[in-house]
């Protein structure tokens, strides 16, 4: 009886957690602008409208460009930094770590505002450079963590054995360590890419009408129109991220990267 009550409670909570997702999926295939429950049929017209709407097309490609650069830069800087932290003690390490982790704590609107003002100081406001830099800083903690966790699991004896057998430091790095942390790097990059592509608040500050990313374009659309076109975009994003995360979990052990342990 108690077990039944417990699982009913858990089910009810999960319904609350997933209800909005189900509503948005239902709305996206609704034939009319006014919602009806149960739905009165299925239509894909909003999907067609969504993919042909010029603002969304531009914003989608902006997002792809920004996300690719930001996640890849974050991957390079984050992995080298994780390697450094894993290998060496040095003065100022704690400060550097604190600064690079801080985007997890700094409100995104404060960070976005900072990058807006910084862009203004260098006459780069609302340009791609500032958008990419802001996104890169935001996603770096996730990449760094993923690579750091993989590095911590690498057996240091392998590197030492290779070095003793005459491998140069460069060889040890590229032939031994890199292949071993590659899954962690790929998983970290993927998380970074998803977070960057869907990031809204900081993007609202740092992008302009020319550089706006998809979430910003969606926000601007919601404020003017009330039809389910944005629901169709949302549904596509939900399906895409769910699939990506499923693949990432299978391929790179996402749970380990996120450090969820269950027995």
């Amino acid at each position, binding site marked *: 009886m*108690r077990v039944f009550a417990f699982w009913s409670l858990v089910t009810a909570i999960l319904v609350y957690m997933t209800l*909005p997702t189900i509503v948005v999926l239902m709305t996206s295939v609704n034939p009319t602008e006014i919602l009806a429950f149960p739905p009165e049929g299925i239509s894909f017209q909003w999907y067609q409208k969504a993919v042909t709407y010029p603002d969304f097309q531009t914003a989608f490609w902006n997002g792809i460009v920004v996300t690719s650069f930001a996640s890849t830069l974050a991957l390079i800087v984050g992995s080298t930094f994780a390697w450094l932290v894993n290998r060496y003690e040095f003065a100022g390490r704690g400060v550097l770590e604190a600064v690079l982790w801080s985007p997890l704590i700094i409100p995104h609107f404060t960070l976005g505002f900072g990058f807006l003002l910084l862009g203004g100081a260098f006459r780069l406001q609302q340009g791609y450079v500032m958008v990419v830099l802001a996104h890169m800083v935001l996603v770096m903690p996730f990449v760094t963590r993923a690579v750091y966790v993989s590095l911590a699991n690498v057996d240091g004896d392998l590197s030492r054995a290779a070095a003793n057998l005459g491998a140069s430091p460069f060889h040890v790095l590229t032939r031994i360590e890199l292949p071993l942390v590659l899954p962690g790097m790929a998983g970290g990059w993927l998380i970074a890419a998803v*977070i960057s592509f869907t990031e809204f608040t900081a993007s609202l500050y740092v992008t302009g009408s020319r550089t706006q990313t998809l979430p910003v374009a969606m926000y601007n659309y919601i404020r003017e129109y009330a039809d389910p076109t944005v629901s169709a975009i949302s549904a596509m994003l939900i399906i895409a991220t769910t699939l990506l995360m499923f693949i990432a979990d299978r391929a790179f052990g996402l749970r380990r990267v996120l450090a969820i342990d269950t027995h």
Partner: protein
Amino acid sequence: MTRRRPFFVTFLAPAVVTAVILAAAILEVLQYSVREFIPGSLDVGGFTLENFVRINRPIYWLVLLDTFYISLLTAVFSLLLSYPVAYALVRAKRDWVRSLLISLSITPLFTGEIVRTLSWMLTLGADGFVNSILRKLSIIDMPIQLMYTRFGVVVALVQFSMPVMIILLATAISHVDRDCEKAAANLGASPTAVFWRITLPLTMPGILSGVVVIFAWTMSAFSTPQLIGGGKVLMISNLAYLQGFSVLNMPFAATLSLIALVAALGSLALMKSATGRLEKRLAIH
């Protein structure tokens, strides 16, 4: 130089450059917060502390208090709803149940705030899901006002915060030594007593860090109060955005953004000292 350090400088340089850029961005906010506002101009005047004095007005205090209150409500309700899910996730016996619970509770984290906010707008709106269902069942005649209320904002914020809360709680619950529970049960404690007197106290550090992390996180929420609050519910983020982009008072917007940052850092620092003390006490007993 005691030893050669291969790649030290090469790998340090990009991290340092990134840290400097980030610090520069935050310093710009700090710099603007102590500048004079020139109405009708985006240029700022000389140095002044006037922006910090200006905060001391009832309308701004109310926004700060409301931010605090909404964050507290969100953190508490997020904890109450996440604990059962986290417990089920860790203790479920079947693999597929665990996988299902993980997917259902974690995936929403990755769809982004705009998608999730929009989903709640469609759920809570006057023609939204909840109101249509209630009308269909003839429970109500007129739609209930859920949008543009504090209640609606909290309902959405709690759901947003749950994936992170569940991760933190699940980690804490998975670290509970099952032998302690078994010992208590063998000594005659009922399952309810085992939970309240053994499991729950042992997960206290996780609970505390979950509540504070979500509290700090919610204090910086922007899109939910912006869209679901619709100007009727103002949190500090919305006030900062309003000041920056409608009033075009960049210095005051910077001051508000800075206060939000300090509040987030402050609550996390508080948590660190509190969990430290708690862990010490748990270790003694």
